[in-house]
């Protein structure tokens, strides 16, 4: 029962979708049936490239999208994690960073799109910029909250057992802050996919976001729906992979 529960809601959605489309309640140019979308996906993923529009584009689109998400997310981690930990631990860093970070955070990410296009043009750089900007905040805030809530006795205990500043950070501060850090990373990765699609809607030639935007012009609702489903599945898989990878840290395995 507990094994099936996570799939109940997706199954219901699939059922309603099938009922609406196959039952003729929604015309197929607005809502293609699950079977049609499945065929579209088969061609998109497996057919030889060039045999039809969209045929075999999947691998290329996927790699392009993952490159942009990966680049943007990595940048957000590289900045957000250390700055977050610092501002969570040091009062002057918090005073120094908080006003600026929260001010920038108040601007919806989409408002940066025109500026990003002017600065970076259409493509990789704009998307990476948008993704890293959006993912930075949850990562920074998670690290800051985690570092702030670390039991000060743990730091004293570490110092009392002879650890210097640097080793205290890696062997006590980060592990103790880990639950919040992981939450921030997961939220950051989730929002990375949202801004990936936004960045790819601007006319780049490849990527999952580009595929669904092109499909709108061509009236291919089946491609749009397939693209949305693929993004959902890939986003979830990336989250699972990241959480799985983080399990190499004891603090993630044991404080989870």
């Amino acid at each position, binding site marked *: 029962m507990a094994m099936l529960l996570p799939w109940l809601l997706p199954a219901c959605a699939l059922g309603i979708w099938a009922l609406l489309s196959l039952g003729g309640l929604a015309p197929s140019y607005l809502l293609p049936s699950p079977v049609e979308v499945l065929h579209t996906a088969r061609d998109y993923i497996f057919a030889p490239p060039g045999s039809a529009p969209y045929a075999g584009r999947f691998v290329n689109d996927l790699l392009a999208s993952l490159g942009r998400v990966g680049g943007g997310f990595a940048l957000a981690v590289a900045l957000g994690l250390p700055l977050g930990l610092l501002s969570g631990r040091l009062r002057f860093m918090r005073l120094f960073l908080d006003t600026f970070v929260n001010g920038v955070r108040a601007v919806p990410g989409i408002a940066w799109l025109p500026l990003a296009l002017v600065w970076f043009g259409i493509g990789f750089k704009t998307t990476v910029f948008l993704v890293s900007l959006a993912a930075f905040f949850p990562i920074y805030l998670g690290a800051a909250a985690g570092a702030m809530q670390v039991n000060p006795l743990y730091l004293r*205990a570490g110092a*009392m057992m*002879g650890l210097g500043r640097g080793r205290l950070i890696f062997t006590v501060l980060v592990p103790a802050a880990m639950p919040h850090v992981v939450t921030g990373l997961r939220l950051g990765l989730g929002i990375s996919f949202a801004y990936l699609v936004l960045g790819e809607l601007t006319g780049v030639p490849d990527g999952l976001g580009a595929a669904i935007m092109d499909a709108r012009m061509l009236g291919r609702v089946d491609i749009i729906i397939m693209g949305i489903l693929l993004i959902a599945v890939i986003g979830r898989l990336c989250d699972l992979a990241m959480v799985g990878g983080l399990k190499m840290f004891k603090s993630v395995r044991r404080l989870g």
Partner: protein
Amino acid sequence: MSTRAPRKANGACLQVRGLGKSFGVNGRRMSALEDISFEVRSGEVLGILGPSGCGKTTLLNIIAGFLPHDQGQVLMHGQTVTRPGPERGVVFQEDALFPWLTVAENVGFGLRNGDGRAGRRIKVERMLDLVGLEGFGSYLPSAISGGMKQRVALARVLVLQPAALLMDEPFAALDAQTRGDMHSLLISLQRQLQQTVVFVTHDPEEAVKLADRVLVMATAPGRLRQEHRVDLERPRQVDSAAFLEIKRAILDGLGGS
């Protein structure tokens, strides 16, 4: 095991001289400790007794190097204490084990790579045996009782062979039975290791049961008021006439002001 840190037989291990400390509270300076002076000989067990809020934790934190002080000096084997270090092992009042490490990993935490992996493991296992936790090395702190946690807390500092063991009401949160077991453990460890111990308590019976010497503190500001020697064989009978006499004298000291 390697030899313990060299020390002069019966020489002063720890010296506290004219120590003063105040805190800023709501813009005012509140004096927490005033003119505290005492010495602890190597191998001695010193108990510091006082009511809640008299400054016991503050005093211990200053000796440990966690807190700066305003006046006076703290010397360890003649060297001024400026920061925490493994020669002053601390057992905290609250549970301060690392919850993401197993019991064995907690005990091995402060050991240096110099011993090698195998050497560290042997030290950890010996120490676990010594505190009566053989077989519990792979448990997480969340899976063991409060008494066992304090045994781990003791083990992780004793494995570093501290010149002085500092304990802040380490058994106050335990039930009477477990506290009694911990007292016996501490007495046997202290005898085996000739460990110098400074412990803080608000319980006169605990002080007389464990200490060679008891310093009694007064509140607001925290000062030393009296010193009592306890020249009784261990383990001590808490209902013997000699024990009760010392306890009475201490209680009288605590009561009057």
